[in-house]
Structure formats: C-alpha cells, structure tokens
C-alpha cells in the first residue's frame, strides 16, 4: 500500500536535524580553527585557515594517558560484569529456592539507587581501604552500579531459552556448569553483547566516581580531562572541543560496526 509522503513528519524531522546538527557542526568546525581565529571568527562560518594543530596538541599533552586510563576502567568494568552477571542470571532463571529470588529483588531495588546518593560513603570506604586514586577504586563502584540493569537484561534474555533444551541436557546428565557453558552462554549471546556494551558505555562516560575518587594525572580518565580542561585558567576552547571529538571517536566506531548491540545495550533491551 503506497502512502503519500508525510509532509508534517518530514518538516519535523528537518527541525530536529538542525537542532542535532548545528551544535555538532559548530563542535566539529571549531576544532579546525586556530585559537586566535576562534575568538574573532563567528562560530558558524568556515575557518579562514584550517588546522589540525588542536588535535596534535591534545594528543601530546597527556590526553593519550587519559585514554589508556579510560580503557583500563572500561575493560575492568566489563570484565567484572561478564564474570558475575551471567552466573547470577542463570541462577535467577533456573535455581530453586527463595534465596535467589531475594537476590533478584535486591537488584531490582538497586535500580533506584542513584550513584550520587552513595558517593560520600563510597569516598569514605574507598579512602579507608587505600583504593583512593587507584583506577581499581573507580572500577569497583562503577561495575557495582552496572549490575542491576545488566542482570535485568541478561535474565530477560535467558528466560527466552526454551525449557525443552534444558530437559534435553538434563537427560544427558549434564552438570549445571556444563549446561551453563554449552547451552546458556551460547543461547544468550545477544544479551551478553547488550550488557557488554551497556557496561562499557557506563564506564567510558562515567564522571562522578572518577571526579571524587581520583586525583592524579596518572589516574585521570577522559571525562575528567574534559572537565578539567574546562576549569583551568585561560581555556583553549578549540583544544577542548577537539578533545571532545577524540573522546567520542571510539564510541563512534562501535556505533558504526556494532550498531544493534549498542542500541540494545543503551536501551537496556535484551537482544535476540
């Protein structure tokens, strides 16, 4: 059934395109201006003199280190999540007994705890345990706050595994570990991809925990780098905006190559 073009929707989508596109355009174009030109040229015109110096300066002034730190945090968080969540979800879906049910409810409750609410005691605990200003001190709480959503998503994905498959394996006398390895994990690949992406994004874009729990140049993550760029005296705005662009590049790559997993990870929907 062919429909006539939807003019209203077309117009609306154009408005949104401008709203999204304009700041992105200003952002991108500003990174190619020299610092002197930035304060004389308007934000909308093309630079009179194109330069990539801003990017080079960023890369040579410690932004590379920030990147490595963010990668470390992201990897650590993803590793923890992938280590503890699949067994938990498996237990929630398959285990008997009240205990696992309680754990699940506990995690649901955890969905409502905002990270800001626990930052003071977190700071207390982290500094008392000597983890202050260590990346592991950022990784642990960040991972903990990923758990509720990840559990919810993966549990959802595992619930969709047909009972007859479990029964077939039970007939063979498979142990829970074997069932987990040979049935559950392969069958919930979509869910695993989603929680990987979700956890990675949380870690990559995390700000509050690093802000409070680290202090050194050697433990600075990218988001913190952007924030500090902003608050020091005499900010070099094109340099700052180039740093923003650099910080989103890896996510952009994932977006291009693993768009569906990313989208599912973002919306917290179990993928199938």
């Amino acid at each position: 059934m062919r429909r006539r073009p939807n003019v209203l929707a077309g117009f609306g989508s154009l408005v949104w395109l401008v709203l999204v596109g304009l700041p992105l355009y200003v952002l991108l174009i500003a990174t190619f201006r020299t610092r002197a030109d930035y304060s004389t040229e308007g934000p909308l015109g093309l630079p009179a003199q194109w330069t990539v110096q801003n990017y080079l300066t960023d890369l040579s002034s410690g932004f590379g280190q920030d990147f490595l730190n963010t990668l470390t945090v992201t990897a650590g968080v993803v590793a923890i999540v992938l280590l503890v969540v699949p067994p938990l979800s498996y237990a929630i879906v398959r285990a008997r007994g009240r205990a696992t049910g309680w754990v699940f409810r506990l995690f649901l409750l955890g969905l409502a705890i905002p990270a800001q609410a626990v930052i003071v005691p977190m700071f207390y605990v982290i500094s008392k345990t000597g983890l202050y200003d260590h990346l592991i001190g950022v990784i642990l709480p960040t991972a903990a706050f990923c758990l509720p959503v990840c559990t919810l998503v993966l549990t959802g994905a595992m619930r969709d595994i047909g009972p007859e498959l479990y029964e077939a394996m039970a007939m063979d006398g498979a142990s829970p570990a074997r069932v987990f390895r040979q049935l559950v994990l392969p069958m919930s690949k979509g869910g695993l991809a989603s929680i990987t992406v979700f956890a990675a994004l949380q870690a990559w874009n995390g700000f509050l925990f690093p802000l409070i729990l680290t202090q050194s140049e050697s433990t600075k993550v990218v988001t913190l780098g952007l924030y500090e760029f902003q608050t020091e005296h005499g900010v070099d705005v094109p340099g700052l905006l180039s740093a923003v662009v650099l910080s989103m590049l890896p996510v952009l790559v994932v977006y291009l190559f693993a768009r569906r997993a990313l989208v599912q990870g973002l919306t917290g929907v179990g993928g199938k």
Partner: protein
Amino acid sequence: MTSLATSRGAAGRAARRTRPGAGATRPGFVWALPAAVFFLLFALTPLLLVVVLSFTSWDGIGEPRFNGLDNWTALIHDPVMLQSIWTTLLLTVLGVVTQTPVSILLGVWAAGRQRNRAVLSAIYFVPLLLSATAVSVVWRAVLDPNFGVPAELTWLFGDGNLLGTRSGAIGVLTFVGVWQFTPLHALIYQGGARAIPQVLYQAAAVDGAGRVRQFFHITLPQLRNTVITSMILMVVGGLTTFDTVLILTQGGPGNDTTVTAYYMYQKAFKGFDFGVGSAIALVLVVVATLISLVVVRVSGYDKMRGTTEGL
C-alpha cells in the same frame, strides 16, 4: 525427580506455577553468590553508611563524630535545601514534559522502514554517544554569549545572557536535556512502535482513518507501556541531574539551578561538610524512591509481566 513427577501429574495452575523444564539439573545459590556479595559490598553497604554518616560531623580530615540530629536540624532550617528540591522537581517535570512528545514523534517516525529514515536516524542518535560531560562542554561553548551562536543570531537570543538569569539557566538545562536524552527515549519508542501489529493500521486505513487519527487512536494507546518505561527513566534521570549542572551553570546564577544532587556535592566536596552532604544524599534517595513508587503504582508498571512488555 519428584518435582518432575508432580509437575507432570498436576494439571492447570499447579503446573504453571512450577517453572517449565523443572526436571533439568539446576544451579545452586552459589551461582548467585559472587554478584550478590559484590553488590552488597559496593552498593548496599554505602547506602547503609550514608544513613550513619548523616548523623555525624566529618570534615574529611579527622574521623566522623556522631552529632545526633544536628545535620538534620540544619537542613530543615536551610532555605537552599528546600529550594534545591523544588528546582530538582521543576527540572524533572520540565524534562518529562519536553522530552516525551519529542521522543514519541521521533521514535514513531524512525520506526518507519523507509531508507531515508534509517539514514537520518543514524545522525539523529549521535548525541547518545557523547558523555554528559562532553555534551555540557559542547553546549557551554555553543551558547557562549560572545563567541557562540548567540553572538551571531542576536534576533533569536537577544543579548545572549542565557546563563545569567534563572529562567534562562533553567531553560538551557531543559533544552540540553532534550538534546541529550531524546535520542535514547526515541530509540525506546522506535522499538515500541515497531512492535505494534500492522493489521491494526491496515484495518484503520480500510475504515478511512487518516494519519493523525491513526496516531492518536492506535499508536499512542499501543505505546502506553513504553511511555511508562520511558517516563520512569526520565524521572530517575531528572532527579539525579548532576554533570550538566556542574559544568554548565555550577548551580548559578546564585542558587537558581542548585539541584539537590549538586547541593550535596557542594556541601560535601566543596564545603567539606560530609555529614550534611550525607543527609542531603539521603533526602535525595527518599524523594527519588517515593516518586518512583508513585509513578510505578499510578501507571500499573508493577502489574506488567515479562521483561519486554514495557519496552
């Protein structure tokens, strides 16, 4: 094996209560233990500690000392505290009111399978990829009254004093919220809209219902659960707004955009009054939980079954 026998033997309700596939070898509680312990240690313990700390005075240098209800009496008499709650609620409501319609429209639009929509969607969702920090940094630069867009579009922005007034600053925060979060919610609505059976539309078309009618009589009612899910996310997100305030307005002008989460940060980590900071954090938890509960009850979200129903 006895459970297998009963589940097979009993009919109807009894069989449904036991999970399908009940006969297979099952994992023990041990499988849940690592996650449970980890979560207990790093999320729930701090939550309990925040209660304890709210009855102490602690400046970060010495050890926390109990000071009874001092923090709480101070907060009750603190006009900024109350104002921060109102500001938080205002920003949350503004966020829901502005983001919901835009997200629904965008999501339903993007649900269409047309090629151009797919391509444009890819661009539309780019703000998703930016961290809140990056979003704030970019908007700070874009809205600068001297070097940003307001300097060129004076017909639209006037003198560009956007962050210098209460209404301006709140407007900016709301707008940046729309920019930042609409893509996420549009994605959720896109999923919801695609799940609507096409037959409904075909039937309506046969009845001669136009596009607008179809939208209001089929799409919106069918998206009801999605709206609730999305709104809950918006409310929780709105109540915990922090990064954008810290970078865009720093709570200013004056206290005009000091939301509760930022006020907690100010008291604890700028003023080194961690006791009062903890008390504010607790207020935030209570307010957030209460509002979430109300939204859940009113919407009937808790009655929904399954994991995908609300999405």
